[in-house]
C-alpha cells in the first residue's frame, strides 16, 4: 500500500479536478502546489494565471511569493497588475479561481481579514483580501483548498472577505456576483460541494481511512453528509513522485524543508 500524508492526498485530489486546458487563476500556497501538480501530470496545457500578471506560468519550483521571478521567467506573457484584474479576470476569461483561506463557512464564504474581536481590535489580524474578493465574484467557478478543523471550518466567518454562497439558497445569484461560486472545497479529510438548493457545503467524499465522525468533529456546524458518500482514490505512485519531486526542488531553491505549500 502506498503511504502518503493528509496534505499530499489533499493536493493530489485538488490537482485531479483541474482539466487540461482550463484557465485557472491561482492563489499562492496550497492552490499553487495543486495547480502545478496538475500541469506536471495530466494537464500540461492548463493555463495558470497569477495576480502578479503572469499568464501561462510554468514555474519549475513553487513560488514562495505571488510575484517570484520564477513565474515570469517561464510564462507566456507578463502583464501589469491592473491588466490582469481588468482584462483577464473581470473580462470573464477565468474558468476556475483557486483559493486558499484562513476560515471558510458553511456556505463557502472566505475570511482572510480578521479573526476574533472586531475589525478595529481583532484577536488576530490576517494579511487581508489580496485579489480574492474579485476572483471569487468574477471567475466562472471557485475552488477552495484548506485544512479542515473547527478553527478553519466555521458556521459563519468572523469577517466575510470573499463571497461564496452568502446566506445560501439564491442569495449569491441575487447579489450580483458572477459565476457559480464555490463548487468544491478540498480538504485533508475529504471533499465538500454545495447542496444544489440550500448551497450548504455537504461532505460528498472522504479520503481513504478517514471517518465521517472525524470530518464532523473537524467542522464547526452540523455537517451534512451525502447519502452516496464516495471515497477518494489514493494518490498513485506517479502522482506522489511528481508532487514530491516538485516539493524537493522547491525546498532546495528556497532553502526550506519540504512542506506542501
Amino acid at each position: 500500500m502506498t503511504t502518503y500524508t493528509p496534505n499530499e492526498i489533499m493536493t493530489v485530489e485538488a490537482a485531479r479536478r483541474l482539466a487540461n486546458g482550463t484557465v485557472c487563476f491561482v492563489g499562492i500556497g496550497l492552490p499553487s502546489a495543486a495547480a502545478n501538480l496538475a500541469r506536471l501530470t495530466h494537464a500540461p496545457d492548463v493555463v495558470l494565471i497569477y495576480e502578479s500578471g503572469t499568464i501561462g506560468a510554468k514555474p519549475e519550483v513553487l513560488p514562495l511569493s505571488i510575484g517570484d521571478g520564477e513565474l515570469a521567467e517561464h510564462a507566456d506573457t507578463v502583464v501589469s497588475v491592473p491588466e490582469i484584474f481588468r482584462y483577464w479576470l473581470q473580462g470573464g476569461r477565468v474558468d476556475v479561481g483557486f483559493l486558499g483561506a484562513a476560515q471558510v463557512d458553511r456556505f463557502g464564504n472566505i475570511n482572510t481579514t480578521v479573526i476574533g474581536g472586531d475589525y478595529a481590535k481583532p484577536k488576530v489580524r490576517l494579511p487581508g483580501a489580496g485579489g480574492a474578493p474579485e476572483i471569487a465574484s468574477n471567475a466562472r467557478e471557485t475552488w477552495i483548498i484548506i485544512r479542515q478543523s473547527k478553527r478553519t471550518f466555521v458556521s459563519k466567518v468572523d469577517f466575510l472577505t470573499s463571497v461564496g454562497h452568502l446566506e445560501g439558497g439564491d442569495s449569491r445569484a441575487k447579489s450580483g456576483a458572477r459565476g457559480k461560486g464555490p463548487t468544491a472545497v478540498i480538504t485533508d479529510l475529504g471533499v465538500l460541494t454545495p447542496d444544489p438548493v440550500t448551497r450548504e457545503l455537504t461532505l460528498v467524499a472522504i479520503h481513504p481511512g478517514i471517518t465521517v465522525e472525524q470530518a464532523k468533529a473537524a467542522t464547526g456546524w452540523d455537517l451534512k453528509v451525502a447519502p452516496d458518500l464516495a471515497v477518494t482514490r489514493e494518490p498513485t505512485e506517479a502522482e506522489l513522485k511528481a508532487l514530491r519531486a516538485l516539493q524537493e526542488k522547491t525546498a532546495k531553491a528556497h532553502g526550506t524543508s519540504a512542506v506542501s505549500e
Partner: protein
Amino acid sequence: MTSPLMPLHDAIARFVQDGQTLAMEGFTHLIPFAAGHEVIRQGRSGLTLVRMTPDILYDQMIGMGCAKAVVFSWGGNPGVGSIHRFRDAIEDGWPAPLAIHEHSHADMAGRYQAGASGLPFSVLRGYVGSDLPKHNPEIRTIECPFTGEKLAATPAINPDVAVIHAQRADRKGNVLIEGIVGVQKEAVLAAKRAIVTVEEIVEDLRAPMNACFLPHWVLGAVCEVPRGAHPSYAHGYYDRDNAFCKAWDGISRDRETFLAWMKKHVLGTKTHAEFLDSIGSPTMAAAAAPGMTG
C-alpha cells in the same frame, strides 16, 4: 530641461516631506528598499503610506514611526507570515496609532489607473458580498448610467510622491522596467512627483518597442542605487534574499530587537552600500556582475 539624475539622499530630501501621501510600489519584485531606508534615515513622519502589499519595507517604516496611516490590500511577509510591526501598530498603537484603509488588489490597481488617467474615481465589479465596504467608507456603490447595474466605486489615488525601483536608466533619466511590472507605471503617472532608483545607469537603454518605459520628463528624480531592491529581487540582476525575509520574522517580532537592528543597520549607515556591507550582503562588485538571473 534639468536632468532628474541625482543622489538618493538629495531626492528624498527634496521631494519627501512630513505628512505627505507616499506610494512605494513593487509587486514583490523591485521593492524600493534603499529609498524607504533613506526616508527612515531622514526621519520623515506623519506619512500616509500607500502600497498594495505592505511587507518588510513598510513594516520597517511603520516601526520607525514614519506613518500615520496605511492604504493597502494585502499586508504580510510573503511565504513567511505576519509583519509584526504593522500588527503591533494596528493592535497596540506602537510606536504610534496607525489608521488603516483596506481595499482589494483589483481595486487598488484600478485606483492607481484612475489617478494616472486624470479621473476622480475608479469603477469595478468588486466587493460583492464582502464586509470590506462596511469598514471602509471610501468603497461605495454606483449605478451604471447605461445599464443600471450596481458597481463598486472608489476614489483615485494621487500620491504626493511615488517611489519605485527599476533595472536601468539612461543618462537622460529615461527608465526601463522588466519582468513583473506590477502597478509601478500607474503609481508614477498618478503621483505629483516620482522618484525612481535604478540598478544602473547605462549609455543605451535598448528598450524594446512595447517595453514598460518611463520617460525622463515624467520623473522628478532618478537615482543609481545598485541592489536598491534588496532583500527583494531585480529580475536579471539578483534573486530575492529569502533567508533575510525569513530572518526578518525573528528580528521584527520584538520591539527592542527591531529597534536595535534598525539603529545598527539603517540609522547607523549613511548609504545603501554601507547598509549592504553592514548586513553582510554580497559585495556590490559581485552583485553588479552580468549574467545573474532573477
